[in-house]
């Protein structure tokens, strides 16, 4: 449905999107995950015809966005990062305008009615957009993207700035849309793509780092289990007990203290759920476990583990042509060094961990 081939976008000398290729099948919900400034919005803006690419091709349902922009745009509904609302129109006027703007031929009243029903904005239809809350504005923005029933819907950070309840509602809404439409959404929140998407494309510094089914990414993430455990008891003994516990790869004391309880960072081995074991072991010693918090991975960790995984599978970047590699190295020396140092650190930590285990054995 959507095909992006070797897309490059330069702003002057800086490179926002660097040779991205991926495809989205019909009916898929694809999440575009990456930190701020990774090139998510740029890619989406190119895909919707708002920006032109420096080189490369983007096509929607076989229509090239540069060759036939009008036909391609007719197939897309787009919600930019900041919903494009006219604050002095009422919701109804605004949707009417969207209907006319897109040259929609569906029955106007029934179509707009149905959209209002889907995104639940019926009760604010006669209100002026300026007076709406952030959540409602976001919905009106989504409604605008749905006008004309486009085959592809693109959402740029649809849940930014919403409260948790609204976030869940919007996510459910997007999930529902995925039944009839091909959806791309961008976010920098891992949980969001996990909750909504079939497939995750991770992008960092203008390059695609991973393009995987959600389950695979989730597995990678699940592999790395880290906890903050708050345990009341003598610090040294607790620590050595933790380290001795089979299944725990790593443990350390954090500089947090509440009464006689300390907080420990505990990391389990791959694929092991240590929580129950941990509880009973501590109970044996009569050290109450007063808090156990699972730590979400941050994006940096995910990149490292995802890239680690894919390297294990494919062998170290054998698929990348030598020339291209050199070009990238020349251009992004400092970035690459940073990436390498992160890699090294992760490797070193693993090595240390296994060393420690050996010692203990």
């Amino acid at each position, binding site marked *: 449905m959507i095909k992006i081939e070797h897309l490059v976008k330069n*702003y002057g000398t800086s490179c926002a999107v660097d040779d991205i290729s991926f495809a989205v099948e019909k009916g898929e919900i694809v999440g575009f995950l990456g930190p701020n400034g990774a090139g998510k919005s740029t890619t989406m*803006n190119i895909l*919707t*015809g*708002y*920006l*032109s690419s420096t080189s490369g091709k983007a096509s929607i349902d076989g229509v090239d966005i540069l060759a036939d*922009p*009008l*036909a391609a*745009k*007719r197939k*897309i509904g*787009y919600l*930019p990062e*900041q919903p*494009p*609302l*006219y*604050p*002095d*129109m009422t919701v109804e*006027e605004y949707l009417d*305008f*969207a209907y*006319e*703007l*897109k*040259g929609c031929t569906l029955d106007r009243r029934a179509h707009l009615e149905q959209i209002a029903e889907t995104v639940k904005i019926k009760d604010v239809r006669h209100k002026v957009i300026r007076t709406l809350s952030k959540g409602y504005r976001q919905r009106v923005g989504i409604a*605008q993207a749905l006008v004309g029933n486009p085959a592809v819907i693109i959402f740029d950070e649809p849940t930014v700035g919403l409260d948790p309840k609204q976030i869940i509602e919007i996510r459910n809404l997007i999930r529902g849309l995925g039944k009839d439409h091909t959806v791309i959404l961008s976010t920098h929140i891992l949980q969001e793509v996990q909750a909504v998407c079939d497939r995750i494309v991770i992008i960092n510094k203008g390059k695609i780092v991973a393009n995987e089914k959600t389950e695979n990414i989730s597995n990678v993430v699940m592999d790395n289990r880290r906890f903050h455990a708050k345990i009341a008891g003598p610090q040294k003994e607790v620590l050595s007990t933790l380290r001795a516990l089979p299944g725990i790869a790593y443990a350390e004391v954090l500089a947090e203290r509440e009464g006689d309880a300390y907080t420990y960072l505990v990391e389990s081995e791959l694929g092991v759920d240590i929580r129950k074991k941990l509880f009973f072991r501590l109970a044996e010693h009569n050290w109450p476990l007063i808090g156990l918090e699972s730590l979400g991975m941050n994006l940096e960790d995910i990149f490292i583990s995802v890239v680690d995984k894919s390297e294990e599978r494919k062998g170290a970047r054998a698929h990348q042509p030598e020339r291209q590699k050199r070009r990238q190295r020349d251009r992004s020396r400092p970035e690459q060094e940073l990436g390498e140092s992160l890699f090294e650190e992760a490797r070193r930590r693993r090595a240390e961990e296994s060393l420690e285990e050996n010692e203990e054995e």
Partner: protein
Amino acid sequence: MLAVYRKEMRSYFINPIGYIYLGIFLVFSALLCCYTTIISGTYNTSSYFSMMIFAFIILIPILTMRLFAEERKMRTEQMLLTAPISLTGMVLGKYFAALTLFLGGVLLSCLNFLPLYVIASVERQGTSETLTHVGPVTGEIVGGVIALCLLGAALIAVGMLVSALTENQLSAAVVTIGVIAAMVLLNMLNLLTDSDGQPLISSFAVRSVIDWVSVLSRFSAFLNGVFDYAAILYYASLSFIFVFLTVRVYEKRRWG
């Protein structure tokens, strides 16, 4: 294009801006008409039309300042630019909306001439003489109105281009005032004289170039009731060039 046109028309009237524009325009033109004709005791309308041009320096920016600057600021232009309409359609929709409001104002201001005709008819009843024409010359008035419309169309295109280049309504307005003032005042240079009564710009060539470029010099023929096709073409091309440049600005921005 029609969707954008309708949206712009609507936004002129759900905002105060449309009313402000029409209000200022009508009040100013009525006062001006009153002073230049009735109070001055003349039926000659040419000074009314030439002074209206100076009102345009302030009035046109009111019409054009928000056309694109506001859309950029509110990020709503993303909706227009990702919709299945051409850039030309979008620009023309906005241009014609501003033009419609402008023409509406000009046509409404034609009511200002009614008192002249009324006064003239009263005056004619008092005299038995029919050899000399008493009252305003309709041909001159029609010519003047057409000239105002043409000049306005060109200046709106200029203001629109400025609005497309800026992100702030206020700066769009200020720059537009500057540009239009420069265009209107250009041929004043030709009228400047030194103490001996000689033109300050001594070179005839320079004076004729200024005369050719100035938007004002082509205006005067109409005021004498001469229907100048060359001038119509001149103003039409001027409008076309600035509309075209606005489209190019947006084309360029996509590639930026």
